[in-house]
């Protein structure tokens, strides 16, 4: 077949150019560590990688939510343990009092009970490091429990007007409850309303009763029935608090399980993403070497053929 001189001389050029393009691309891949320099390089994988990194971002956020929820629940646990022991202490004090004791002995008990009362009131008004009252439901900026003592009913300034709170997934809890999303559509309650322990609907006001006890214990008219009444109120509160403690403990267990699976999935997804997007350095360098070899071969072929011309032999 006839070939024209231009084609003859420039036929190596295409090979040189394609090899140079490939080498430049490999260099970029090695420098950036990425296989895909643009999404068009591999649209299917690139979009998968995009969706995966979106999932990773979401899951990382869920992991952060879990950390925060754990922090809140642990804080609540510690405070509730303290409350529980204060209540038990108050109970022990009350059980230890009898109308037959001397006024001065009962006075000592009343004074001790006053200390426990103040401690309990303080715990019910606990604030988190950001200054939020943790047992106040949604009204985190307002001190929830105020009791003047001496049989005065306790005032509550937390959220109790809304009888029930509903999470986005339909879960319900007493008013003022807050949830955190720990996974797609999975919510966990991260606070509790202490009103249900201290002033249960239809039940006795714990702080009011303790206030009365402090006033009445040293008095002459105190009877064993009165004392038993105070103990009964305390027992109800202790068992109510125990229920909340159990709820929190269960939530923490759920949280731990969830965290383990979140971390495992996060690791898997990160590995998958890196498999999709990260360049295999060894393979890239081997390809670079082979591209270089073929570029050298083409260049050599060009220099050999370009020197050939019939004109060299004429004259």
């Amino acid at each position, binding site marked *: 077949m006839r070939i024209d001189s231009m084609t003859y001389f420039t036929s190596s050029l295409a090979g040189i150019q394609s090899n140079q393009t490939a080498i430049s691309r490999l260099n970029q891949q090695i420098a950036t560590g990425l296989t895909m320099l643009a*999404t068009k390089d591999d649209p299917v994988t690139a979009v998968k990688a995009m969706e995966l990194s979106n999932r990773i*971002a979401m899951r990382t956020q869920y992991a952060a939510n879990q950390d925060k929820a754990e922090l809140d629940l642990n804080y609540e646990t510690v405070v509730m343990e303290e409350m529980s022991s204060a209540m038990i202490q108050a109970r022990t004090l009350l059980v230890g009092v009898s109308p037959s004791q001397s006024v001065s002995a009962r006075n000592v008990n009343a004074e001790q009970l006053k200390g426990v009362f103040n401690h309990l009131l303080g715990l019910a008004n606990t604030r988190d490091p950001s200054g939020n009252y943790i047992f106040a439901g949604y009204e*985190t900026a307002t001190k929830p429990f105020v009791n003047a003592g001496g049989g005065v009913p306790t005032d509550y300034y937390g*959220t109790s007007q809304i009888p029930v709170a509903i999470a986005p997934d339909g879960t319900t809890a007493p008013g003022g409850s807050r949830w955190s999303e720990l996974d797609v559509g999975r919510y966990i309650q991260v606070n509790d309303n202490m009103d249900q322990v201290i002033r249960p609907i239809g039940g006795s006001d714990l702080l009011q009763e303790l206030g009365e006890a402090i006033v009445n214990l040293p008095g002459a008219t105190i009877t064993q029935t009165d004392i038993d009444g105070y103990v009964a109120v305390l027992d109800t509160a202790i068992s109510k608090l125990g229920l909340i403690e159990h709820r929190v403990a269960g939530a923490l267990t759920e949280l731990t399980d969830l965290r383990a699976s979140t971390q495992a999935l996060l690791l898997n997804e990160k590995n998958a993403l890196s498999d999709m997007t990260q360049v295999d350095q060894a393979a890239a360098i081997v390809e670079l070497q082979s591209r270089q070899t073929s570029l050298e071969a083409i260049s050599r072929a060009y220099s050999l053929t370009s020197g050939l011309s019939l004109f060299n032999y004429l004259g």
Partner: protein
Amino acid sequence: MATGILGIALSGLSAAQAGIRTTQHNISNINTEGFRRQEVDYSALNPQFDGTAFFGTGVGVSTVRSLYSQFQDSQVLLNQGQLSRNETYATQASQIDKLVGDANSGLTSAMDAFFGAIQTVANDPTSDAARQVMLSSGRNLAGRINSLDTTLKNIRDDGNREISATVTRINTYASQIAAMSGNIARAEASTGQPANDLRDQRDQLVAELNKLINVTPVQQGDGAFSLFVGSGQPLVLGSSVSTMTSVPDVTNPQFLVPALSLAGGETRPLDSSMLSGGKLGGLLAVREDVLLPAMQDLDTFAYELATQFNAQHTAGFDIAGVPGGDFFTNLSTLPSPYTGAAGQIKAIITDPNKIAASATSLDSPGDNGNALLLADLQTKQIPGLGTITFSSFYSELVARTATLASEADIGVAAYETLTSQARQAQQAISGVNLDEEAANLIRFQQAYQASAKAMQVASSLFDELIGILR
């Protein structure tokens, strides 16, 4: 013309000279774009009858013709037109692909950050820091949408300018081709010989024009040359040239489309279905397939984000228990297809306390009910987006753009190969081969030497005759 032995030798000399001249012409034009190698056609002169037999009278040049194949030439035109189209398409599609798919300019990371910030507000609804972060990441997301929109509009404007500039160049080429065709017709009519080099030049202009707009050249029987574009509209018809202009598109007035000015002041817009090749074809196709859908998708995305988010935000209450206002610019009055939404969207809340994280109207700063529902929008399937999530909708935009850009790249590679094959096949016929020309040079040189020798023989014959008479 002298007849007899001297005359015959003389015709041989000039024939060899014609051969050498043509060979030199071929060699000198080896680098001339569009040049077709030429060959001298020889024929024996009319014989003379001297009473006994017909005697030859030497050689004459019947014509100089250029070598080409109409079929190969049209193959090159066809493939070159598609290559230009794909190159233009790939350049713009890659630009848009890089823009929407890139982690820095795309929306994915901004979207993740925004929804993450909402979750952080849900974790700690009274935290001023968390609320500030949500505001700034909302502003950032809106800003990203704005800047994507601006860049896409810049690409649109660049495309418009390119269409105008290309149309101007097409007009220049068209009038040059018409003028050149007139010259060719006149030169050929007066001499009866093909004007090879003029034709090469004209065909080269056609090839250049074809890179801009795919043309169908038609050589009419009477020597008139015409070029047709689109679905058979004449661009050059003999000596008359139709002017091309660019006019606003009827459905999308912000886009310019090329149009052909017809006789009687009428202009006929050419759409992408008519312009299947060339740079103009690529510009129109990439706009239709990639740019316009990307702009529309971005508008839809911005509209749905603003509308859905505002709807949920206004359903909640801010830190003081006041009903929430719009978080993003209210775009709900924009008619479908929501043109301009991506340019208008802004996060309009500036006071972090105005974020409606609470689901209850009472004084409840610690309520995160509405923040949870706002965060839920990340995984919610939005009917206005085709019942998929925001991030899936954006992924689909990226996937579509990337696929088209990658197809265009494949198209470029394919048409590069096809064009180069067609060009090689064309050049196998029309291209100059220096070795061949060297051999021809020797051939004509020897023919010249032989004719000169014949002349010397004739001359010595005369000398002999004159010597006898002396």
